[in-house]
Each structure stands twice: as structure tokens, then as C-alpha cells.
């Protein structure tokens, strides 16, 4: 068994469409202060290393990692950035502690999506510059292509995808940190503007701002710092091909492979039975269903039935995205995995009030990096 590492403190801001009152520095400072207070650590004395999460063009800086240390209390400390999802940063921090050389590591991610005033153009800028970018008008077309192939392969319906939106936005109404809760119907989703058929406006999660900081510690220290350590039981991450021309459109291969790695590490044979609560990537509605299959919570083509039968509702057999997910909380870009992890931590600690999943002891957080990527990251957490 790999030496245990635990999350001993979390800090976060609310997630909102805009945050005009705070700079990116001030937003992270708020989350960091809360995380350190909860963990009972002083970043200037106790924390051995810091991992931030940033992509240059999301932040609007070349070499965006320059601007991470000050607001984390990390000046003149070992600090690095991961150009990826928060969950990849969390895994980096986890590996640092497993080396036996660092004991307390802080992890950060932040979204200031409201400051990116040309988000569509920006997402397009991630496409292959020679083969794909000149052909594309709107980056969501990749999701439209994938959704159509997924529906075709699995006989899942657009209505079933719409039910995901209805469920997640409803869950978000009970989540004080979520910015996009709403009471809507399946018809509302189906009748909203088509963005890239079969994808409608409401099938797509809205961009949001926010920041998350977490503190991780080795077993010995975690037990001293908190009565409720949340242990990292398994991690997995994977990138499938970047090429649009040769990827598998029907399934999320990267999620499947990352899950196999994480389940093996966490010694999980039957995910549906052994995992109590799931936060997975729902940047687009169909992705929740596609990811449920890739995570082996059901066979291929059966996720639609799970939503039909209420299995993924908060009171269901396998609650999925009780926070409201990206559809209800907002799409946080590189901070997406942070919100997923945050919700699992709060659920396992039993601290979320109305949206609490009963008897939650093992949870899974999953993030996908959005179009046009095929990168998926997973952490399995437990009490």
C-alpha cells in the first residue's frame, strides 16, 4: 500500500459569472487564507512546497507562473506551476509527499474567465494551427461532433442529455457557492438555441470565475492537523491523441484509461458499489453520460437509463454532480477539477447541508480539459 496522503484543508471563493471587485491575486489570496486557516498552517513556516495551475492564454500572460507565489504566501519557496487541470496539480503535490522529502504541500487553481473577453477565439487558438483551425468557426463544433457520434453509438437520446442539465442546475440551487442554479425543464434545454447540432445553448456550461486552494499532508502530519483528513486513495490521468482526425469520438478513452489506473491504485473492483459520490466533468451535458460509461459505473449505452431512473440524483444509488457540476456551478477552465475535488471533500466530511449524500465514504473527482483536448484526470478520495 502506498503511503497515505490526505487533504487537510480547503479554501474557496464563491463561483460567479464575474468577480469585478477582486484582482486575480486578491481572489487567490482569499481562497489561500481560508485553506491555511482550516488546515492550521502558516504558509511562511509550515508549507514545504506549492503547486499552482495556470495556462498562459487563460491568464493573459506569457509565462503565467510568474504571478503565482505572492498571493499563496510562497515567496522564496519551492513553487511550480502545472499547465493543466487542478487535479494534475493535486497529483503533483501527492507525488511530492510520496517522495518522503516534502510533508505539507499547497495546491491552487483559479479562473478569471470573465476577463477573457474573446473566449471563443481563445478556445479556437488551442486547435491544430495547420489542419483544424482554418476550418473552424466555433470551438463547440468538436463537442457537437462527439455528441452526435456518442448518441448514435449508444442510442442515448437528446432528452436524456437534457435531463442531466435539469438535474445539475437543480442541485446547484442547494449549493451556496454555485453561480448557475436554476429550475428548468427538458423542453427548455431542447428548445434553447442550437449552437452546434445536436448541442444547444443550455447543454453547454457557462463560464465562471473563482479560486480554490487545498493543503495536502503526509499521514503522520495529517493526523495531527485535522480530525477529518480526506485520504487520496488513487489517482489516474491520461491524454488520448490530440488529433481530431484519429480519435475515438464515441467514448472518452482517456477517462477509461485514467480510471483503470486510479481503480487499480485504490483497489476498487466494482466502482458502482464501492464509490458513494461522484463529481465528474459535465462541461457539456452529454459528457456526464459518456464519462459515467468510461468510469465503468455502467456498461456502454446504459448511462441514459441511469438518468432516466434517477440513479444519479442526490437521493439515488449513485449521486453524480451533487454540487451542480459545471452546468450548475459554472465552467472554471483549469480550476474545473478543483471544484470537483472540493465538492467530494465537503461531501465526505458531511458538511454540505441540503445536498449531502448519505453515508458518503468514498468519492471520485474527475475532470476533462475541454475541447479540443482528450485529457482526463481522476482522484479517488476517502474518509
Amino acid at each position: 500500500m502506498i503511503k497515505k496522503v490526505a487533504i487537510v484543508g480547503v479554501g474557496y471563493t464563491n463561483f460567479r459569472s464575474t468577480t469585478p471587485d477582486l484582482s486575480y491575486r486578491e481572489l487567490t489570496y482569499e481562497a489561500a487564507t481560508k485553506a491555511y486557516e482550516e488546515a492550521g498552517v502558516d504558509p511562511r513556516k509550515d508549507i514545504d512546497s506549492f503547486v499552482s495551475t495556470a495556462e498562459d492564454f487563460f491568464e493573459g500572460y506569457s509565462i503565467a507562473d510568474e504571478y503565482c507565489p505572492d498571493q499563496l504566501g510562497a515567496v522564496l519557496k519551492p513553487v511550480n506551476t502545472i499547465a493543466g487541470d487542478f487535479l494534475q496539480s493535486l497529483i503533483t503535490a501527492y507525488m511530492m509527499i510520496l517522495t518522503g522529502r516534502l510533508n505539507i504541500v499547497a495546491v491552487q487553481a483559479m479562473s478569471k474567465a470573465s476577463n477573457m473577453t474573446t473566449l471563443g477565439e481563445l478556445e479556437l487558438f488551442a486547435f491544430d494551427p495547420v489542419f483544424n483551425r482554418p476550418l473552424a468557426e466555433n470551438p463547440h463544433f468538436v463537442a457537437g461532433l462527439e455528441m452526435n457520434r456518442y448518441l448514435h453509438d449508444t442510442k442515448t437520446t437528446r432528452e436524456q442529455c437534457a435531463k442531466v442539465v435539469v438535474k445539475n442546475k437543480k442541485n446547484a440551487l442547494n449549493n451556496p457557492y454555485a453561480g448557475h442554479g436554476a429550475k428548468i425543464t427538458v423542453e427548455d434545454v431542447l428548445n434553447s438555441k442550437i449552437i452546434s447540432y445536436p448541442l444547444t445553448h443550455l447543454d453547454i456550461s457557462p463560464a465562471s470565475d473563482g479560486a480554490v486552494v487545498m493543503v495536502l499532508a503526509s499521514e503522520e502530519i495529517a493526523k495531527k492537523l485535522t480530525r477529518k483528513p480526506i485520504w487520496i486513495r488513487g489517482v489516474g490521468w491520461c491524454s488520448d491523441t490530440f488529433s481530431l482526425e484519429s480519435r475515438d469520438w464515441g467514448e472518452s478513452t482517456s477517462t477509461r484509461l485514467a480510471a483503470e489506473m486510479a481503480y487499480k491504485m485504490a483497489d476498487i473492483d466494482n466502482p458502482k458499489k464501492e464509490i458513494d459520490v461522484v463529481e465528474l466533468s459535465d462541461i457539456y451535458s452529454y459528457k456526464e453520460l459518456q464519462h459515467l460509461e468510461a468510469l465503468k459505473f455502467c456498461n456502454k449505452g446504459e448511462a441514459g437509463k441511469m438518468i432516466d431512473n434517477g440513479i444519479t440524483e442526490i437521493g439515488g444509488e449513485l449521486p453524480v454532480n451533487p454540487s451542480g457540476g459545471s452546468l450548475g456551478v459554472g465552467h472554471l477552465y483549469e480550476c474545473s477539477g478543483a471544484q470537483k475535488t472540493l465538492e467530494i471533500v465537503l461531501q465526505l466530511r458531511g458538511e454540505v447541508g441540503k445536498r449531502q449524500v448519505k453515508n458518503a465514504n468514498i468519492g471520485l473527482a474527475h475532470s476533462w480539459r475541454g475541447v479540443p483536448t482528450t485529457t482526463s484526470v481522476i482522484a479517488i478520495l476517502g474518509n
Partner: protein
Amino acid sequence: MNNKKLNFKGTALRSSDIKEKKVLTTSWKPSLQYAWDDGVAIGRYLKELKNGKIIARKCKKCGRIMIPPRMFCELCFRPTDEWVYVKDTGIINTFSISYVHWDARRIKEGEKPFIPAVIEIDGASEGMGILHVLGEVDPEDVKSGMRVKAVWKSPEERIGAITDIKYFKPIIER
């Protein structure tokens, strides 16, 4: 590989290969835009620049008066405590005389070089400098340790930006 000769790949192109279309090229001009929230500290800093003043923040724990201002002390990791107006004069910590624009274009014949400098602002803690440029001075006369003063745009021209200060110029000591 120990006995094998190393085989390094990589093919150099010349500019002429592109001009003469020996290789095909494609281009993309991104039109990315951002509207950064300036937040509490920098928001006030810019507002004061519009008023023709420079403002800093003080941390009572370490005693530092910090510019540019920040709402947290990065060394003590606690909120800063109060606003402090500092002077628009200072000392040159270090400087350069630059003959290149930001994108590596050379300045034109006869054009004056830029003189960027780190200026330690009077009233802020020792060593607290900002990046700005110098003006009304011959490049050969600039020295580290020289005292300088801000030259402001007129109140009508000021917009709440670091460029509300046109440049810093030497203070002639009498």
C-alpha cells in the same frame, strides 16, 4: 548506444526558403482580448495616478510600505493595514539605454533611445522600486543613485494608468 555515433536530427531553414516558397507556410493572427479586473489595491493605485498621486500600502507587522500597493503582505501573509501616499520622487536603482522596441524592432535613425529604470520611490520602504522610463536627460548623463521626479500628463490627459506619469526626469540639485 555507447559505441554508436550519435545522430542528431533537425533541419534548419533559411529566411530565403520561405520567401522563395521552397517551403509552404500558413499563418494565423490571433485576436485575443482581455479585460483584467484591477481589484482593490491596483484599482486604488490607478485612481490615485489619475489624481496625480502615488499611493502605497503599509503592513504594520513588518513595517514595509509597499508599492505597487497590495491588499496582502506577501512576506507576512496577512492583510495590509493602511494606505500611505508616497512622493513622486525617487532614486535610480539601475537603468538601461535601449535601442530596441518591445518586439525587437530597432529604433529609427536619429530617434532617442528609451531609458528604462528601476526607481526607488521616496516614502516607500527601502528598495521598493517600480519600472518606469526616464526623460529630459541625455543617456550619457544618467547614473545609478541619481534623484528623479515624475513628469505627469495634464489632468485632462490622465486616464488612471501607469502612463499618466510620462516619465521621470532628473532633479537638478542646486
